[in-house]
């Protein structure tokens, strides 16, 4: 069974048909990339998968469960984490605290038990902290754990955001242009990280502009153009696909 | 209910309603150009009435009113220049708090200038007991002045925004501030102008209603709350909506007297507002899209 199944997904904004009848599947354990020129509907597609807004029609099924009507927090609860194209840090919190928020669905302390600091929350709190530090270490930014997240360099913020998403222990990770704004070395580093994440057993679906990165790491690629899926194949085949070449020649 | 009573309620409702509507339109003018709700709007009404009453010692009434309106416009401009103009994209919360602060401060300034006692302008025509029969009911001629002034202001605004170039620039500024700036419109001056306009309208309303409601230093808050209610009911930013919602609320308040004790009147009208906010936050007459745009 596919981990994520998208069937005839449509989104209209007024007269604009942002996503038009898109269907594809993501298999467990793979890195799947969605590419396409600006305005192709990639982020809209992401937002529908993660529950930010509902599709006009069509369905998203995750682990056999229909996500229709699910709010983002419910989708996250089911084991789907995401990052944002323009990084959304929690300002006024340290890098570590940012990641600790990511442990939200993996912990239980509520209002009262937090206020009264019940003994069992101590253990949970320690576990949250340890796991978050571990993730920061995994992404190589543990020395910045206690720095205000918004004052970190751009690349480091990306890493914090990635750690934050991983803290959910997701089965599926949605990455919205993880290499946007990064230089060539940082991009390569991100590519290495994504592969590492996949090797941890987490399925990755990413939207990306940077062709070299996508071709390097993806197991499969979906190409969107003006809201429609025009190709879905293995990277070498996509590189040969005349239609894709036509679209990207104009751009690159 | 007899027809006479019905008409009497209706006229009472229209009187309150017109007053609420003018305050609401004042809110809307500023809201449209800036996205700010000016909680000090009620104080413009107070200043208009109080200044006109003070000037009445030195000059005939029409002149006093005209001068009072102009002075209040200057106050409006000063408020914008001192407190609003130089803030760069302040948050909604910050603006709410600043305008509440301005409102409190204006009230305190007023009490130290004019004292705590009530004053009023004389009736424009007739006196406290003269009335005009309308289908068996009787209304004060001043009510006609209030209604006429409200109507004139709405018409004036309509013409101003549609036909004059400044009015069109203000509208451009309202629909898209950035684009308006790019087109060479000085949006900052448009914002000042919107404060001047709404201060002037508030002041005129303050003069016209003074014989009926009296003027007192702390009259602004109550009016502002009612005006704000009406502005939201009618859909923020819509003048036509404000007039309709104002009269609707006024009439509901007037008729509510026959069902519930007067003491609960305010609670009722606010409860209506809350229900509408929950069900239709865009207001009775606003479009959903507009509400979506103005949610920040």
């Amino acid at each position, binding site marked *: 069974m596919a981990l994520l199944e998208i069937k005839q997904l449509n989104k209209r904004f007024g007269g604009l048909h942002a996503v038009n009848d898109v269907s594809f599947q993501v298999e467990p354990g793979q890195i799947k990339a969605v590419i396409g020129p600006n305005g192709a509907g990639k982020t809209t597609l992401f937002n529908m998968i*993660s529950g930010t807004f509902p599709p006009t029609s069509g369905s998203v099924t995750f682990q056999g469960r229909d996500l229709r009507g699910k709010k*983002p*927090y419910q989708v*996250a609860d089911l084991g789907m984490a*995401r990052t*944002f194209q323009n990084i*959304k*840090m*929690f300002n*006024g*919190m340290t890098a570590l*605290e940012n990641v600790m*928020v990511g442990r*939200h*669905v993996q*912990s*239980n*302390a*509520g*209002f009262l038990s*937090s*206020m009264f*600091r019940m003994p069992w*929350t101590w253990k949970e*709190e320690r576990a*949250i902290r340890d796991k978050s530090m571990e993730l920061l270490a995994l992404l190589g930014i543990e020395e910045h754990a206690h720095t205000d997240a918004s004052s970190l360099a751009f690349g480091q913020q990306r890493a914090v955001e990635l750690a934050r998403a991983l803290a*959910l222990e997701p089965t599926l990770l949605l990455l919205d242009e993880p290499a946007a704004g990064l230089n060539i070395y940082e991009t390569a580093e991100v590519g290495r990280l994504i592969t590492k994440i996949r090797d941890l057993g987490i399925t990755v679906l990413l939207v990306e502009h940077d062709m070299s990165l996508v071709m390097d790491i993806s197991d499969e690629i979906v190409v969107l153009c003006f809201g429609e899926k025009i190709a879905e194949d293995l990277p070498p085949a996509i590189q040969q696909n005349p239609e894709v070449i036509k679209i990207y020649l104009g751009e690159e | 209910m007899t027809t006479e009573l019905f008409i009497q309620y209706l006229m009472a409702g229209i009187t309150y309603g017109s007053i609420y509507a003018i305050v609401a339109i004042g809110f809307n003018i500023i809201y449209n150009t800036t996205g700010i*709700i000016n909680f000090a709007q009620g104080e413009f009404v107070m200043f208009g009435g109080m200044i006109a009453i003070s000037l009445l010692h030195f000059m005939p009434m029409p002149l006093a009113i005209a001068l009072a309106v102009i002075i209040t416009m200057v106050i409006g401009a000063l408020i914008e220049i001192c407190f609003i103009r130089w*803030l760069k994209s*302040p948050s*909604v919360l*910050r603006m*709410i*708090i*600043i305008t*509440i*602060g*301005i*409102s*409190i*401060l204006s009230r*305190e*300034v007023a009490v130290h200038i004019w004292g705590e006692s009530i004053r009023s302008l004389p009736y424009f025509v007739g006196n406290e007991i003269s009335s005009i029969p309308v289908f068996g009911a009787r209304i004060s001629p001043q009510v006609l002045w209030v209604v006429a002034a409200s109507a004139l202001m709405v018409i004036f605004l309509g013409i101003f925004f549609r036909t004059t170039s400044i009015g069109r620039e203000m509208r451009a500024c309202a629909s898209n501030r950035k684009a308006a700036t790019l087109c060479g419109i000085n949006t900052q001056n448009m914002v000042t102008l919107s404060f001047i306009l709404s201060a002037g309208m508030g002041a005129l309303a303050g003069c016209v209603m003074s014989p009926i409601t009296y003027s007192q230093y702390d009259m602004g808050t109550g009016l502002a*709350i009612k005006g704000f*209610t009406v502005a*939201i009911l009618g859909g923020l930013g819509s003048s036509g909506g404000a007039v309709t919602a104002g009269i609707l609320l006024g009439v509901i308040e007037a008729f509510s007297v026959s069902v519930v*004790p007067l*003491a*609960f009147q*305010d*609670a009722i009208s*606010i*409860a209506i*507002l*809350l229900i509408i*906010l*929950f069900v239709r*936050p865009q207001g009775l007459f606003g479009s959903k899209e507009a509400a979506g745009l103005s*949610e*920040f």
Partner: protein
Amino acid sequence: MKKLLSVLPLLAVVIGVHLLTSATDTMYYLTQMTMSAYYSLLIIGLCVLMGYAGQISLGHAGFFAIGGYLSAALTTRSLVPYQDTALVNLLDSVGMILSGHDLYGEAMLVVSPWAACGIAVCTAALIAVIIGIPVLKLKGHYLAMATLGFGIIIYRVALALEYFGEADGISEVPPFPLLSGLTISGNFSDRIQNYYIAWGLLLIGMVLLLNLMDSRVGRALRGIHGSDEAAGAMGVNTSRFKLQTFVLSAVFAAIAGVCLTHYNGGIGPSEAGVMKSVRYVAIVAVGGMANLWGALLMGVVLNFLSLRGVFGSYDDAVFGLILILIMLFAPNGILSLNIRHRLKQLLRRGKQDREGEV
């Protein structure tokens, strides 16, 4: 535990103030210190709602009034005319009824203070849930208006109902015996213990909120404030957390209302007024929104000065001015100004200038 330690200096200050006043024979300051502590309890609750969950409330005096009025009415209004009804019997059978004679020898039958307090606080919480669900869906001006409207309704109801004493409010509210020997009352002889009760409550409230902010829930709330969308993507149920915070702050306000009403021996409609709500918002803003210590400090200082009549007839004007100045020049609160840092900068600049001249 660490947070518990962080309020220890404050506890020391509280005891210090007591000792200082008793040494200088100025214990009367403790009266207003006690009242300020109760108002500050409301203010730190509002601080969590406004500063951390990012929701403005222009109606918090309403919750204070619900707590104060209900507790006052239940412990003051005689149930003698209803003594045979099922409800009164039920309350009596669970020990929630006090009977006795009033000052003038008439038979009295009232709800006991603990039960009244419980009813008052639960009612406030319930009302917070009922209005919170729809209200917290609103944003910006709509949220401000809805909470303001809620406050006005409470004010109007207090002013219109005979049961709540209309314009006079409720007087002769009895003391609130917390434990044997500990009583909330305004008697001059109980002043010191009341000072400690009020500050004890405030300290406990502070510890609880500091604990909360430094926990899973607190991080989620701060996350919501930072980015609603990202917090949602992390699995934070933003609307539920906002609602819970709203209820929490309402409970703080109601407890403050209950205690202050018993301390004052009465409550009037001015406690539910719009100006009161605005004042609380002002104090939170001055303290720096998301800053519990700032809110506490400003709550105590400003209320203390106001209750002592330091501002005279300029009381409201002072608050208006503070609001404007803070929002114009220090939107992150007066503590954010970091005066020492500024002064250092200024000095350094002055030095450089002088050196430049040489």
